[in-house]
């Protein structure tokens, strides 16, 4: 039996939670929101050519692994990342690393994790967790969205690590090798904000960032004609699920990012960040407004105020608000030394 001393802290999003927990384990205590911000986790993308359960992918956060990769690129932080072809090899490597008393982060597919709530077992393959021990044939897992550590049989974990479909994890595992004793946050906060601003404002692709929100708005307005009423409602429900279901911290990660801005404002004594946090919260509230409207349509209780054109207007408002926040943030980063 292997049992490592691992600080399990519950968090709202799996990847930033894993990052924060792993860093804390190595002695660098940071919050989940801070990890999310340093990793440049916020994003928007409407990618209809990637299908999840036959519905277009709408994502409110950076691609799986992005947060960790960006944190690993901080000087002084070392991270090893491995992918595998062979299931046995992947599990053997996991055991070997555990035996060297290193907690290991894994990317998994939630469909195969037996401890997950039934209602959330969709084919979603970008769920992160940390394995911190093994007892008999069961792994001890610190899953950041769960309040307490959980257990998972080896067989199921192996399946989860080799889930197929979009965003297939391919047995991906990662662990930190070293972290700096003290981390001067300021330059990394600026860098994290810069990368998010770049994605949200300056992407050349029309499906990404603020442009992506506008693109989704345009498409969404046409859904009832293109797909028929019922199918349009399904698409709409899917957008809301991606925005609000477990692992987002609410409001499509906007609240979590606002929490990061608030924390940074406090750390750097910077009132402008505080203002940006407030405007981003307002944007998150508008996203929620959009979701509430969508839900009323899905329940077929749409009054005159909840219709597809109204939602297009609401999305465009979100886009305008976020454009303003990130333009302000970009200006702020440019003025930094």
């Amino acid at each position, binding site marked *: 039996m292997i049992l490592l001393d691992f600080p399990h802290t*519950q*968090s*709202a999003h799996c990847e930033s939670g894993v990052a924060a927990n792993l860093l804390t384990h190595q002695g660098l205590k940071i919050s*989940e*929101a801070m990890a999310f911000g340093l990793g440049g986790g916020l994003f928007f993308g409407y990618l209809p050519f990637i299908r999840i*359960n*036959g519905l277009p992918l709408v994502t409110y956060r950076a691609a799986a692994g992005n947060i960790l990769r960006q944190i690993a690129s901080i000087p002084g932080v070392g991270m090893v990342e491995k992918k595998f072809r062979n299931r046995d090899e992947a599990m053997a490597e996991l055991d070997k690393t555990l035996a060297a008393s290193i907690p290991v982060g894994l990317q998994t597919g939630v*469909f195969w994790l*037996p*401890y997950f*709530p*039934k*209602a*959330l*077992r*969709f*084919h979603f393959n970008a769920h992160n967790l940390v394995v911190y021990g093994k007892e008999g044939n069961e792994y001890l897992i610190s899953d950041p*969205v*769960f*309040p307490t550590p959980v257990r998972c049989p080896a067989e199921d974990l192996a399946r989860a690590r080799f889930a*197929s*479909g979009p965003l*297939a994890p391919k047995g991906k595992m990662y662990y930190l090798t070293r972290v700096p004793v003290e981390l001067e946050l300021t330059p990394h906060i600026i860098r994290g904000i810069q990368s998010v601003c770049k994605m949200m404002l300056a992407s050349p692709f029309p499906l990404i960032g603020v442009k992506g929100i506008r693109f989704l708005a345009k498409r969404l307005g046409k859904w009832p004609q293109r797909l028929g009423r019922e199918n349009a*409602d*399904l698409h709409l*429900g*899917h957008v*809301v*699920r991606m925005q*609000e*279901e*477990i692992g987002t*911290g*609410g*409001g499509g990660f906007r*609240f*979590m990012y*606002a*929490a990061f801005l*608030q924390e940074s404002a406090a750390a750097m004594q910077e009132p402008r960040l505080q203002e940006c*946090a407030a405007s981003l*919260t307002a944007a*998150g*509230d508008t996203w*929620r*407004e959009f*979701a*509430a*409207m*969508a*839900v*009323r349509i*899905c*329940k077929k*209780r749409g009054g005159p*105020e909840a219709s597809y054109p109204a939602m297009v207007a609401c999305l465009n408002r979100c886009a305008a608000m976020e454009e303003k926040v990130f333009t302000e943030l970009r200006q702020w980063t440019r003025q930094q030394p």
Partner: protein
Amino acid sequence: MQRRVEEEGRVSMQCPTSGSTETSSLTADREAPVYSSYQKITDGLKIVSYVINDRGKYELTPDFLWQPVTVVNHQAWEEIAKKTTISRNKVAAGRVSCLHYYMTANQMDIGLVAQYTGQPRWKVCLHLVPFVFARVSADTLRKYAELYKISLDDLCKGRLLAPFTMTNNQE
């Protein structure tokens, strides 16, 4: 079933349209019946979310799930249930093999089944035809049985069991 859906609908109507986070958290406290349906979604799992407290600071607040999520989650499962029922009827009518039922009930499509079993898509397509499925080799059947966590016997006899995600959930 229908009754419960109605109830959720009524409650979600009361959710603030332009509400800030504070007001939505208040609604969550006020609405006892929704709380139970949220528990159903997460199986009693207590999750945390970012909510602004009275001093305007963000806090990780345990045990708070924005209610409309339940509605869309429910909608997604209704759709899966609908597709599964259609598939069940098709199997009963002998138009597709029981593999089609298991594929649908486990929210998979042909591409995904092909990837999981390491076969080309056209083969999986063929196996959906009852005539072909009856002549599939034991090795291939074993792959399918393993994928859906059912016994080989169940698959051969074409018993339509509930998907494993719905049955063997650990407490």
